[in-house]
């Protein structure tokens, strides 16, 4: 906290070509630690309860070759994507409305708390029963599970918005769309990012349950199949395949986008 400048000579950092290097090293270290821990687990628990990385990757490879894994993964990803888009759109709109209008908040509050605390199982089962064992029931059930979480997060963001900028927009007669794009959404960006990140994870978890309860394909369906037989290797295989895709999305799509969106922030010295 108190790294005061007893410091004397500081080289102006005029050129830093090796800026990626330490980051890469840290990431590599972190991943290595993960596998080390895993191997330790294998050694400690035995390969039945904690199969080694090699055997899990072998499983992934063979399932990929057989086409099983890509098929189920694809189906699940499609469901995750559809539910994600719906949940983010509806949840953001509802959160904004409830954060900015007392009336909307008062009206929506009991529903929000109800939906927030409705067990996933119940929402899913009721959706299947009332709508049918269909794809749209599945996606609706997932979205319904996620919407209240998005709403709650965005509502906090909407409440914390800086009124000064809103006033500026009002004085200069910004249109609704202009205000949304230039004042509201950029201010909500961290909240949207938080909702999206924890959202995609939550959605994927619920998709697993949805697939378990009433779909005939998808990773959740497969995992449950293997779970009934206690095949930890297969379960870990499917899980890791999904996590790997999420890592790719994170590092090659989300983070570059985020870096662009945050260009304006003063970088800490």
């Amino acid at each position, binding site marked *: 906290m108190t790294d005061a400048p007893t410091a004397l000579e500081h080289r102006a950092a005029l050129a830093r070509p090796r800026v990626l290097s330490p980051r890469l090293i840290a990431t590599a270290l972190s991943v290595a630690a993960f596998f080390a821990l895993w191997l330790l687990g294998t050694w400690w628990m035995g390969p039945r309860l904690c199969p080694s990385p090699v055997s899990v990757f072998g499983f992934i490879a063979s399932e990929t070759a057989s086409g099983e894994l890509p098929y189920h993964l694809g189906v699940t990803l499609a469901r995750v994507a559809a539910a994600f888009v719906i949940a983010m759109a509806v949840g953001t709109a509802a959160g904004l409305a409830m954060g900015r209008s007392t009336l909307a908040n008062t009206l929506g509050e009991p529903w929000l708390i109800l939906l927030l605390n409705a067990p996933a199982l119940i929402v899913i*089962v009721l959706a299947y029963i009332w709508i049918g064992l269909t794809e749209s029931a599945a996606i609706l059930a997932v979205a319904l599970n996620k919407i209240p979480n998005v709403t709650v997060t965005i509502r906090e963001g909407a409440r914390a918005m800086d009124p000064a900028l809103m006033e500026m927009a009002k004085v200069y007669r910004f249109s609704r769309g202009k205000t949304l794009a230039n004042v509201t959404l950029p201010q909500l960006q961290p909240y949207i990012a938080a909702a999206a990140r924890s959202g995609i994870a939550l959605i994927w978890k619920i998709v697993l349950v949805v697939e378990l309860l009433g*779909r005939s394909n998808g990773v959740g*369906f497969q995992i449950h199949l293997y*779970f009934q037989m206690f095949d930890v290797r297969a379960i870990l295989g499917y899980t890791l395949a999904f996590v790997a895709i999420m890592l790719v999305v994170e590092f090659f799509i989300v983070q570059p986008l985020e870096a662009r969106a945050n260009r304006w922030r003063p970088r800490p010295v």
Partner: protein
Amino acid sequence: EGPVVRLALLKFGTVNWEADTIKREGYDEANGFTLEIVPFAGANATQVALLSGDVDMSTGDWLFASRQRAMGAPMTFIPYSTSMGGLMVPCDSGLKSLEDLEGKTIGVAGGPLDKSWLMLIGMAEGELGFDLKGRTRQVFGAPPLLAEKLRQGELDAALNYWHYNARLETEGYCELVSAQDAAEALGARGKLSAIGYIFNEEWADANPELVAGFLAASRAAKAHLLEDDAAWEPLREAMNAENDAVFETLRKRWREGIPTGDAAREEADTAAVYAYLAKAGGTELVGPATEMAPGTFWSGLTAGN
């Protein structure tokens, strides 16, 4: 205070009826042990409990035991019931044989690797030359959900567990084929067990008198429940029967499911069906073992205990 046997059970499962009776009638104390029932809400939960070493016994089927053995955990199996379930259709649907299901939607509890489902496929193939899997549309899902969907008419037929089917029987649904029929079509000479008690062989070897006592208690309870209608009255609540018709059907079907006791015959029949399942379900179903792992049926049974 004698030794304790901890048994993991589905709280409102059918195995509970016997365990309840053992405790109520004191068959456990009479056989030198105390039965402690640890209730769970999911079938998988009882197996998690067994694998984590929290209980001595749980329930499951021989596929589970065999697979665990093949993977190195010496689990072993004692038959509990041959009530297996079957394919239900509305009685007035006019569906008479598996071939009539062409183009229909079937709900299958337990997923595409469910043993009843695989046996049904084998039976249709062997007896009728009918591609049940290819010529029908299947929906996999949670058993209660599928029962509900059959009632709602969204499904034309549902392959479900017997206690769901017993209820359906009282509501105008009929069994098209039972899983036991299918097993016989695949070469079984008698009934196969659907589920049984599962425990670790090492624990059994260390406590042979406990297992023997437990078996004796189990037999005593079965006999009591078979002979005495009054013995069922205390179970009424646990059975959750909404009316007398359901209650009586459940009782009837449960009694039909009491294993005959010819352990050697059953083990051989099971091995035969297993061989078929290993082919039909592949390693996804049976894991590395293409034949039923030796010792899947507890050796103490055939040894004449």
